[in-house]
């Protein structure tokens, strides 16, 4: 367990509304190893982005982390989010058009970040800012340009340069390519992946796209209704899913090859429960073909460090 960069231990995020207390994240645990890319996949509202926000302590009120601990480099950082933001863990948001301050030159934003975190002189900071832009494939002479003069893909490159500028050990990328044109998505993902590999930076990649997961990540966590359904080596999870929900997700992903071209896609019946109408027991059981009695009564824990499903209970004991 020593190579764990980040450990999320049993965190819950709750917020109150008129109908009572809702759990956006429920007893979630996961870990990120040094240099690896962990994918987080799930439907919208499953808690993917919330996990990222919780790690950085950026949950918007009225929500708050009600229990659990987040450990980073062997220390609990529950009360030290501010010290690790940017310098240790950085975040990239979904919409590059909204991520940059429209009223400030990108150079100012880069310099501000570098000068805040690195103990360097202004001229050194400018040098670093230019180098940062060059690395993400942007002409360093555009330091004085405003964000609106860049296209969406270019802006996401600027955002990556900003996130990498303080040389963090972990980047949380929250759907970094969803808002971009399909043709640009792969470029940006490759860029992010390569830059992080060079620096040994880990990534938590939040996405709803199984294709991105398959291409980019080393390990993957599947979230369902604020709970972890399954986690494990990406190849292993995608080829041999243990949780019925993961199986459904994999089967419902379109593939372009001769064998499957005319086959109808699998559909998971029903929809994910709303947070204010969570069923008892396993959140997935109303939609699950394999549900047994126990599923509707008790919430399963994660068995064999792999999947939260009662079907694995006995298997786990055997192993």
């Amino acid at each position, binding site marked *: 367990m020593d190579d764990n960069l980040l450990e999320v231990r049993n965190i819950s995020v709750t917020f109150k509304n008129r109908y009572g207390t809702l759990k956006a994240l429920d007893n979630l645990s996961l870990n990120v190893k040094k240099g690896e890319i962990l994918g987080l996949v799930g439907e919208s509202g499953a808690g993917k982005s919330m996990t990222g926000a919780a790690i950085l302590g950026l949950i918007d009120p009225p929500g708050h982390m009600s229990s659990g601990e987040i450990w980073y480099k062997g220390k609990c950082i529950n009360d030290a989010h501010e010290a690790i933001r940017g310098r240790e863990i950085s975040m990239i948001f979904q919409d590059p058009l*909204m991520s940059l301050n429209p009223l400030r030159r990108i150079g100012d934003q880069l310099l501000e970040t570098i000068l805040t975190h690195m103990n360097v002189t202004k001229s050194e900071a400018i040098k670093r800012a230019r180098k940062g832009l060059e690395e993400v494939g942007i002409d360093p002479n555009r330091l004085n340009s405003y964000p609106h003069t860049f*296209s969406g893909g270019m802006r996401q490159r600027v955002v990556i340069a900003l996130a990498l500028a303080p040389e963090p050990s972990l980047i949380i990328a929250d759907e970094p390519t969803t808002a971009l044109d399909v043709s640009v998505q792969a470029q940006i993902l490759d860029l992010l992946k390569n830059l992080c590999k060079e620096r040994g930076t880990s990534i938590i990649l939040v996405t709803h796209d199984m294709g991105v997961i398959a291409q980019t990540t080393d390990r993957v966590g599947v979230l369902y209704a604020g709970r972890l359904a399954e986690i494990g080596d990406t190849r292993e999870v995608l080829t041999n899913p243990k949780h019925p929900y993961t199986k459904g997700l994999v089967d419902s992903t379109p593939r372009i090859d001769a064998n499957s071209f005319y086959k109808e896609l699998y559909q998971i019946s029903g929809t994910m429960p709303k947070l204010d109408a969570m069923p008892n027991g396993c959140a997935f059981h109303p939609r699950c073909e394999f549900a047994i009695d126990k599923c509707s009564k008790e919430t399963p824990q994660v068995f064999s460090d792999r999947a939260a499903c009662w079907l694995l209970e006995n298997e786990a004991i055997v192993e």
Partner: protein
Amino acid sequence: MLVIIFRRLGQSILVLFIVALISFLIFRYVGNPVDNLMGQEATLAQRAALIEALGLNDPFYKQYFNFIWKALQFDFGNSYRGALPVSELIASRLPATIELAVTSAFFALVLGVIIGIYTAINRGGYIANLILSTSLIGVSLPTFLIGVLLIWLFAVELKWLPSFGRGDVVQLGWWSTGFLTISGIKSLVLPSITLGLYQLTLIMRLTRSEMLEVMRQDYVRFAKALGLSSKQVNFNHALPNTLVPVITIAGLQLGSIVAFAIITETVFQWPGVGLLFINAVYFVDIPVMSAYLLLVGVLFVIINLIVDLLYLAIDPRLRDSNTSE
């Protein structure tokens, strides 16, 4: 960018023509210029001569342009009361109103923005909530009531400040200023607070809600995620974006200040154009009303134009709208 400025300029001129049209209609058809220049005893021939001399038989458009042409030379005719030229009346009273309006606008803008930022950053805090609830009372208090209550407290009970007039003024050419004497400045305090308080609460509430809105934006979240201090996030990222809409509204509020100056000037017997206007309304002094409308129209159009230009100066997206995708 030049295109935008010229388009705005064109719109402003159009608005001015319409305001001038309304002024003209009031001047020409609500009042009766002949009756007011001549007594009842004038003969029909004398009346006809005057009508001819005033051009009242000319076609409508000619009279309208004649009105504008005269207005451009500051000729608005004579007041029905006292028969003084309207332009002279207004010129003698303009400095008082401008000094009052500028002082209160400054007071409202500076304090309003500062308190607004404070209540946004300390959202939910004890003092912030107190300020917010008090501000609701401020919005509901009519201007004249604020003035009367301030007079009661500071002039009648405490006897600290004068309750009416401008105090001693110093004449600088045609401009009379109250800024240069102690009694002038003391006289300015209560009217400025009265006039500025409503705008202050408005600007404060606006700053607060805009800032809270901006703080929800992704670029502020990103700035936080990059580990910038809350001071950097609040003042380098959230504040400039907050100020764009605040400046627009605050600029437009400057117009309201001029309008509400009518009320404040009445409460404090402040010898400005507002008091002149309200007396004109009371005594149906049409030329003064018409000239005041035109004056205020020009003022508002200029304010709107300045706000637009400020907008361009602050927001780079508007400055070179041709380069954005």
